[in-house]
């Protein structure tokens, strides 16, 4: 098993409040790891800590480390822009820029200095194809992204994240704001791209985790209760807490 991210004793605080408590586990490469748990368990904070989206909050602080390519991404020496280039993110609510579809996809490339028109065009095509959006929008790439449906917008956000060729893609409940049909399409996209990219998806939907995840991490009250292969967690969890959650004792 290839390891892509190694979480070591990670604790996260907002001001005095502890959100995550000594999390340690290893995220396998080129697979889908789902993070599940009741709301408020810290799963969202966890993924946002990985690409340091929480840095801009003044009262954020952490202990422990996240090792990626042999380096601690949480250390101040690690350039945050480089990190985010390698670890992409898709958010809960689709958040395309109010620009054209084309400009949305190439945004990441442009800010990292790519100007070659040919590369940009090719990337737009390949990224949209990976997000299985290309066929629907290929004739209207200059259309404002806001005119797309919610599900299409979310797939555009995936394409936008893929355009800068990340090694890891973080998704924070990416289907919670869109309809079931669009959810299915996105799940298919994720399964497809997980052959090349490590995927870490936060979800409150156990069925979704069951459908797509290779591995599952169960968080509860800021702690990692259990991490294992998906079948193991779903069929025979080690912890009673996990079992209670899966059987719907609380949610």
């Amino acid at each position: 098993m290839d390891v892509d991210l190694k979480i070591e004793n990670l604790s996260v605080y907002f001001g005095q409040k502890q959100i995550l408590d000594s999390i340690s586990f290893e995220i396998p490469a080129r697979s889908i790891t789902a993070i599940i748990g009741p709301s408020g368990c810290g799963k969202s904070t966890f993924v946002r800590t990985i690409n340091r989206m929480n840095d801009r909050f003044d009262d954020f602080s952490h202990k422990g480390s996240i090792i990626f390519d042999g380096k601690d991404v949480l250390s101040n020496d690690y350039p945050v822009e480089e990190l985010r280039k390698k670890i992409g993110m898709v958010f809960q609510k689709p958040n395309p820029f109010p620009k054209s579809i084309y400009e949305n996809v190439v945004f990441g490339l442009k800010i990292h200095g790519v100007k070659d028109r040919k590369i940009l065009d090719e990337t737009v095509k390949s990224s949209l194809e990976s997000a299985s959006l290309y066929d629907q929008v290929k004739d209207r790439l200059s259309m404002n992204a806001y005119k797309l449906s919610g599900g299409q917008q979310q797939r555009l956000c995936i394409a936008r994240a893929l355009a800068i060729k990340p090694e890891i893609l973080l998704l924070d409940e990416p289907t919670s704001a869109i309809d079931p049909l669009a959810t299915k399409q996105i799940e298919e996209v994720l399964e497809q791209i997980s052959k090349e990219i490590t995927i870490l998806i936060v979800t409150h939907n156990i069925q979704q985790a069951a459908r797509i995840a290779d591995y599952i991490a169960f968080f509860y009250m800021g702690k990692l209760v259990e991490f294992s292969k998906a079948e193991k967690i779903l069929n025979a969890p080690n912890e009673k807490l996990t079992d209670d959650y899966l059987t719907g004792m609380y949610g």
Partner: protein
Amino acid sequence: MSFKKRMLKQRIAFLSLSIVSIGILFAIGSIFALILVNGLGVLNWNFLISITSFDFKGVTHGGIGPAIAGTFMVTGLGLVFAVPVGILAGIYLSEYRSKGKIFNVLRMMVANLAGVPSVVHGLFGLAVFAVLFKFGLSILSSALTLSILALPIIIMTTENAMRDVPNDLREASYSLGAKKWQSALLVVFPVAASKIMTGVILASARIAGETAPILFTGATLYLAHYPTAINQQFMALPYMIYGLMTTSINISASTNFAYGIALVLITLIALMNIAIVIFRSKTRKNS
């Protein structure tokens, strides 16, 4: 008190409120009406473009061409200085803020700068731009002085417009590895741009009508030609109204002339305000 009595009280109160309000609104409306009626009489094409002249009795003839040109030049040049700095300062206040008192102090200073009396700006412009920097009494000195007046208006509207942009767009650009300035200038600013535009128009309307800051930094009552360079003195519409009303020998003739100028000035400013209203309704529709 019975229900009827209370309703009667409300009626009387609202009725008297209405009478007073309509009185005030009438007074304001009559100012517009007076300017329109008195100004229309002098207004013609010749008045707008030809050069001003005075005869031996001090009566004003000709037109206000150089004054219109002068007002446009100082306002335009003032904006050239104020817009970039003002927008960047607004971006700083909205995008680079962190917790801590220093940002509140900064914000308060912007509000205070907006409250500085315009005649004090004039003194500052005289001391710094005209004397210290040796720009003399000129379009340049006046434009720089006016740019300081425009600055806080532009800063405040930019800050508010940027803050109104939803946070998830910032997160999206950060998550793609954008630096703060890239996120601010490439993502947030384009969304806020039309609201910022209203601030810029508001600022130009404000500085185009100012008299005190240009009074001793470059404006002059009489110029025999159109302004051609920014190191020259200039005529300006508001200053001309003041000059005609306070220095003229033939009051009734110059009063008519002054009303003509006032009509031109008010029309200019009203047009800018209408542009603001249109801009605003557009941004409302888009969001």
